[in-house]
């Protein structure tokens, strides 16, 4: 069963149409990539799922039932434009946000300290946010997003502002939360992380849903499924692109039998998400 279902969701701001009959299903325990160029309507859709904005028409179902205000306690949201109270102490602030998500003060304190320890930032507890660097504040923000163990995690550009080391920590945490059963919506322009993390994606352009489905399926659908063979012989390294219909066994056999040839790789050529994205958004035919 899908954890989140959007059914014919529309949103108008005055004359402007921000979302035009968007229907989506997001299965439980998967990472769902929400893609689209700036201004396509991603943030509006996220805000509707969050109940920050009420749709003009259409419905959102949370775990099978129409979403209600109580459900937001089971959602963790990290907006793209994030922020914390600058003058407030890190610990107090994290506690405050956790309690607004329905946690008891004592439980929240315990869980937060565990998270702070895990991230190695226990000594930041009494610092003010304005004393933290941007990356440090991002870590705190991530903790406040996940501390209440939300069933649905909405992360808008979660890696921006992180150095590669910390980005890796966050990436691992996202995968760990997925293992624990959380459904995750990942909105990003970083197509590498989409390929790496997402199980399914939806692409929104000009307020409309353009495509939706499993990442592997989409890549297959938009690729010509050619096969690439890389081998090295006496002349050096060669790359050969073979048609999709190639019989792998006999081809490999052929090369393996050549003397002095070493096979480096043999793989199906998948289009990169980046290319699919550009193609779908700009309407070009070629990948």
């Amino acid at each position, binding site marked *: 069963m899908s954890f989140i279902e959007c059914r014919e969701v529309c949103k108008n*701001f*005055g004359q402007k149409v921000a979302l035009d009959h968007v229907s989506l299903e997001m299965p439980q325990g998967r990472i769902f990539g929400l893609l689209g160029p700036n201004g396509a309507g991603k943030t509006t859709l996220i*805000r509707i799922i*969050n*109940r*920050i*904005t009420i749709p003009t028409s259409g419905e959102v179902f949370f775990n099978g039932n129409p979403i209600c*205000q109580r459900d*937001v*306690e089971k*959602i963790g*949201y*990290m*907006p793209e*434009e*994030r*922020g*914390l*109270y*600058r003058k*407030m102490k890190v610990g107090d602030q994290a506690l*405050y*946000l956790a*309690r*607004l*998500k329905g946690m008891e003060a004592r439980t929240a304190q315990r869980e937060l300290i565990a998270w702070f320890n895990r991230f190695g930032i226990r000594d930041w507890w009494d610092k003010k946010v304005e004393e933290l660097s941007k990356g440090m504040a991002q870590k705190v*923000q991530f903790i*406040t*997003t996940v501390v209440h163990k939300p069933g649905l995690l909405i992360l808008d550009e979660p890696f921006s502002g992180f150095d590669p080391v910390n980005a890796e920590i966050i990436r691992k945490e996202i995968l760990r939360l997925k293992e624990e059963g959380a459904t995750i919506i990942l909105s990003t322009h970083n197509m590498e992380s989409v390929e790496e993390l997402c199980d399914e994606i939806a692409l929104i352009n000009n307020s409309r849903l353009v495509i939706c489905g499993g990442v592997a399926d989409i890549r297959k659908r938009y690729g010509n499924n050619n096969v690439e063979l890389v081998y090295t012989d006496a002349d050096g390294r060669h790359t050969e692109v073979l048609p999709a219909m190639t019989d792998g066994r006999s081809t490999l056999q052929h090369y393996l039998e050549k003397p002095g040839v070493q096979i480096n790789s043999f793989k199906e050529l998948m289009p990169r998400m980046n290319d699919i994205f550009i193609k779908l958004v700009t309407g070009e035919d070629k990948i």
Partner: protein
Amino acid sequence: MNLRTIGIIISREYQNRVRKKSFLVTTFLVPVLMAALILVPMLLMLNSKEKTKTIAVLDNSGIVAGKLLDTETINYEPAPAIPLDSIKHNLENLGFDAVLNISELTADNTVTADITSVKPLGVEMAQNINSRIEDAVEDYRVESYRIEGLSQIMKDVKVDIRLNAFTIDESGKENISETGVYAVLSMLMGIIIFMFITLFGGMVMSAVIEEKTSRVVEVLVSSVKATELMFGKILGIALVALTQFFLWILLTGAIVGVAGSAMGSDLFNPDTAARMAQTMGTEAALEGGAQAQDSAQIGGDELSTVMVTLRNMDLGGILLDFIIFFVLGYLLYASLFAAVGSAVENEGDSNQLQLPLTIPLMIGYFIAIYAFKAPDSSLAFWGSIIPFTSPIVMLARVPFGVPGWELALSIGLLALTFVLCAWMSAKIYKVGILMFGKKSGFKDLWKWLRQS
């Protein structure tokens, strides 16, 4: 509305502000200032005896010198028999502070007088000398009619009447009243509530802007409803205001009490009051030219009238009215200020949008500070009924007593307007806090209001 989350928001707003240094400083400094405002004039009155001055008198008329009786602060001495100019130039060497030169009697039985001193004379002293000279000339003129026993008649005729004002309450009990007390209280209430609404309404606006610029607001509204956030903030800051208000009253009272007893004498016991009254009385006497002694008595009456008036006033009721009108007035303006704050990203941009709020506040303020002159005039009446000025103007009228139905009407209209404005503000706020990047004007507010 989720009461639990509103509670959490209120407590954060409250605790964060109450723990701030600026809150502690204003909470403790203002009572010290207020107490100083009360105590310093009292101390001054008690200790305002000027240093005794010696004045050389050169009386060419022969009628004034005899009437110049020494007072506590002035010693009159005949001038030495040397030319006036050399006295003027050697005042300090001769041991005089000033020399008073009175001309000969003119044809129409008057004199001119001039006084020369190194340091300027105090106003009080100059008035004193002036009135004595006038008395002397008047006495001389009276006597010049040569009517038998006239001076006695004049003395008998002289009268000093004081209007004793009373108010009568519903039970028919008459209370002595001092209009001045009502006037001062009326202005004070008007000023304080204007200050409070502006200060704490502005605080709500800054808080909204702060959340918007720091972008924490989007995280917040993903946990709580925007309206909950808005009202939590407004109520939290209301509690801060009330806390500050009560601490001010308490601390001012405590400081005045403690300082009063520390000064060795209770400022409020009748002896001190009488002494203060005497000082005040002297001033009054000098102005009116009446006998100082009589007026001191009147001054004493006046002070006790103030005390009695204050005692007879329903101070508890006034305090209750203050709290009701402050809370409602604050709620009305704070919700509007929140809407304005939601539309801008920094305080500088808020000026234009604030205008529709500051104008009625200022109008209310000006009506209020003049309300004591005619508390039942139609301007004051309508000012205290129309919701946007009513909290300020009504409080300025309250010390004079306002009929129950007017209070009820004013409170009812104010509450109704608050509900309406809060509903509109919430709609604007909901949209406004998530609008970034462009400067919003009235048109945008109107659009948001209709769209949500």
